[in-house]
């Protein structure tokens, strides 16, 4: 990675380290905003709130299993949706696409007797085709995604009912496919009370967190860029470790035969994968660029049509997968599946800090936003609040969360964290005016930065 070809150009001296309170946000990881910090706090607060009110039922292992299994599909949708929204679009069709793919998969297993893995792939392929269809209209014809996917919402809802004859199709009992939606990791037992797979998973996660932090610090030091202060790194790792260990313990001590659910594992893998994609890859950078200012992106050589096409295809494939998880969990696909999912996913993304105008948003933030809704739903139903009132409360939460954000922006970022951070940096802004010959400064610029090949 850090080949020596670049050292011919003396690396810039990193600015002197200063303590910045703003680095508190670094505890959240890459590119997180104060908003995400806030939403994570809100999630913790809501969990504690319901934990107290329900007399400990919220963090009960069985409830946690329900929470994960019952919401994984929406959270996965949020992962795809945030990319669509960052790119400046929206996808209203995800619920219908999920339902359409669901019925195709159910029929392929029940009537065509496809092996579960083949059925899974078939469903994803159908999702990709649907995505290519919608992506074509959005990216190459230029019809706004709102319209294209509104049409898609009708088309694929109809397609679900057309294919399924407006009735439900059940999976044969005991089909392996079900493990996608309601499966658990194996448990070798060995006479231990805890589920060993979950414990191992937790341990691996803890190890990964620690190693990743160490690798990142080393990389940053080599690149000569600013290092996150050690205390922040330690605190971040410690918090993550405690959360992971705690969660592993809760999931591991569930009823016999249960573990951290397969759907949860899938979710975690997707979150990690897509976070990496959005933060570290060229395509990820291009998605932000298109959403932030597509004209500038186009003139910078970004193939915006391809980016838009990719985002739409990706969303539909994810919707297909969510539909499959739903079918797996319900062991059936019906004409009413997936109604309203798009709205849940969109709400999660906006609670998680994305901007309606595009260019802003994160995967982790959106999933946390989705968890806020999920915990709220779950806690309220544990408390016996009826669904009418639950809807009202959810609506208010969405409005207040985004409203607070808009309000704080309109006040020109009064966030204490932001202020302290900026203030600490003040003096550097005062570069003295150039002397008589500005050209004295070396302009022999950065020539090769490695990697460019030619």
């Amino acid at each position: 990675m850090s080949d020596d070809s670049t050292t011919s150009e003396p690396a810039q001296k990193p600015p002197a380290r200063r303590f910045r309170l703003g680095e508190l946000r670094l505890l959240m990881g890459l590119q997180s905003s104060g908003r995400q910090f806030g939403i994570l706090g809100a999630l913790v607060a809501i969990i504690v709130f319901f934990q107290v009110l329900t007399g400990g039922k919220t963090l009960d292992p069985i409830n946690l299993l329900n929470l994960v299994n019952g919401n994984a599909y929406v959270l996965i949708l949020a992962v795809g949706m945030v990319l669509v929204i960052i790119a400046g679009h929206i996808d209203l069709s995800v619920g219908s696409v999920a339902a359409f793919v669901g019925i195709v998969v159910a029929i392929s297993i029940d009537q065509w007797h496809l092996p579960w893995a083949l059925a899974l792939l078939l469903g994803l392929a159908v999702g990709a085709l649907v995505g290519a269809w919608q992506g074509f209209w959005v990216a190459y014809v230029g019809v706004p995604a709102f319209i294209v996917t509104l049409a898609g919402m009708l088309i694929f809802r109809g397609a679900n009912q057309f294919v399924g004859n407006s009735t439900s199709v059940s999976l044969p009992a005991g089909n392996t496919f079900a493990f996608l939606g309601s499966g658990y990791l194996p448990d070798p037992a060995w006479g231990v009370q805890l589920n060993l797979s979950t414990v191992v998973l937790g341990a691996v996660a803890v190890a990964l967190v620690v190693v990743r932090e160490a690798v990142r610090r080393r990389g940053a030091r080599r690149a000569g860029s600013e290092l996150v202060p050690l205390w922040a790194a330690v605190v971040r790792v410690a918090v993550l470790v405690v959360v992971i260990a705690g969660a592993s313990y809760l999931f591991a001590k569930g009823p016999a035969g249960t573990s951290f659910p397969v759907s949860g594992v899938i979710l975690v893998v997707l979150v990690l994968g897509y976070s990496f994609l959005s933060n570290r890859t060229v395509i990820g950078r291009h998605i932000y660029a298109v959403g932030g200012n597509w004209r500038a992106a186009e003139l910078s050589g970004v193939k915006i049509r391809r980016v838009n096409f990719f985002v739409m295809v990706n969303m539909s494939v994810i919707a297909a997968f969510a539909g499959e998880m739903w079918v797996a969990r319900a062991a059936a696909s019906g004409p009413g599946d997936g109604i309203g999912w798009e709205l849940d996913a969109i709400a999660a993304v906006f609670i998680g800090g994305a901007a309606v105008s595009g260019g802003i948003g994160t995967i982790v933030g959106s999933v946390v936003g989705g968890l806020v809704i999920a915990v709220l739903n779950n806690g309220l139903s544990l408390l016996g609040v009826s669904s009418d009132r639950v809807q009202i409360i959810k609506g208010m939460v969405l409005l207040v969360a985004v409203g607070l954000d808009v309000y704080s922006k309109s006040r020109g970022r009064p966030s204490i964290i932001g202020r302290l951070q900026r203030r600490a940096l003040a003096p550097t802004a005062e570069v003295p005016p150039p002397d008589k010959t500005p050209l004295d400064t070396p302009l022999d610029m950065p020539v090769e930065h490695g990697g460019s090949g030619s």
Partner: protein
Amino acid sequence: MSAQNPQAGIDVVPPILEMRGISKEFPGVKALSDVSISVGPGQIHAVAGENGAGKSTLMKVLSGVHPYGSYRGDIVYEGKLQRFRGVGSSEAVGIVTIHQEFALIPELSITENIFLGSEITRGGVIDWGEENRRAEELLALVGLREHPATPIKHLGVGKQQLVEIARALHKDVKLLILDEPTATLNGADSQHLLDLILGLKDRGVSSIIISHKLNEIEQIADSITILRDGHAIETLSVKAHEVDEDRIIRGMVGRSLQSRFPDRQPRIGEVFFEVRDWTVRHPQSPERLVCKNESFSVRRGEIVGLAGLMGAGRTELAMSVFGRSYGSYVSGRIFKDGREIVLNDASEAIAHGIAYVSEDRTALGLNLLDDVKESVVSAGLGKVARFGLVDDGEERRAAESYRSGLRIKTPSIDEGVSRLSGGNQQKVVLAKWMFTDPELLILDEPTRGIDVGAKFEIYGIIQRLAAQGSGIVLISSELPELLGICDRIYTIFEGAITNDLAVADADPETLMRSITTTQKKAATR
């Protein structure tokens, strides 16, 4: 309290406006420290200073964009201490700002725009007759001959600005603030505007004008305050002949500029880039050709000017060559190093070593949500990425080296570009395109709206790139700038290249004639 004028008693009459000891801090930056200015009734007061000197901040304090309480110091207007809560409350007492970016709605008519927010109504219904009558009066006053029902989008920049002023007059303006009003205007429109400001002065309207154009200041201002790094350096009376260009420049940059253009020994090589018979259609009206069979060429190490008025088709020509980014291609060929190349989009142009620095840096040059480092690498992401993965360290290294090499004033490369001043944003855009290692760099009005010191630096950067063997195409409406740094100048008028002059043969008169008339190659020889 309002009777005393700390500024050397130019007038005995109490000033209409006094800003006293204004200080304003932003997180991390002290934008203004203890600045005082005073404007007499019916006076035109100029405010000059480099980018980031605090001119715009001062005006925002005055207009209430930065409300009372967010700054220190007093605003005394018409003898009363004012505490503006927002733009609304300053406009209510007759202080109106004309921004660089107009606040007009393109789809609405002139009349609708003038009265937007202050409609003339009768019984809750808009009185169109009265509005149109009044609009015609106002248009006559500002010297704009257009039908009041014309949609704003059909007007050029200069005329839009006149509509803005008409709107201010409708609001019963007593103090007009103009933020670089002529930055986007051509010579004739600028002169018209300046005359208009002088005309308003005769009607008792005071003005504060922010301008980089020193000749304008000399022409219309009564007095001038020079800001530097948030301090008021001095206030001079223009009418008392205390002012000359050198003095203003010295005040702004803290030094005197020996020359406005850096010295350079051009080393010009072979023709390496050639456009032949280039024809492009207008994107909206296909029957219109924005350029027809135009040809031009660039040599290695050469700085080629493209002179023309706003709207002459310079930008359109350049953008269409840059990967057909404007209009629809009809015919024409591009040769680089003798081989024909086809550029279907911007990414292919970049791959062939062509870069285009847009005249509109916020709309086309930058993603304002990005930070400095992301912006610098945004057109050359491939250089800091391997197998589709962005290498964080490489990105930072690249950004840091441009930051110091181009003297980009920013607290860090993690700062959002939206928080930089205009000149520094422009340097970020330059860095972004330099990072693509261009062989041909097309610069569209690269020094517009930036101050003298930054201009000088940007000229230096351009010359440096030429010295390294790149070809430069410089699009500009400022003739002195073209004459100052180009080796050769093409003139363009209504989409047609009208002349091709070595800079030694060019003078402002020839250029002006070639950019305002159609006669091809007739102007010289």
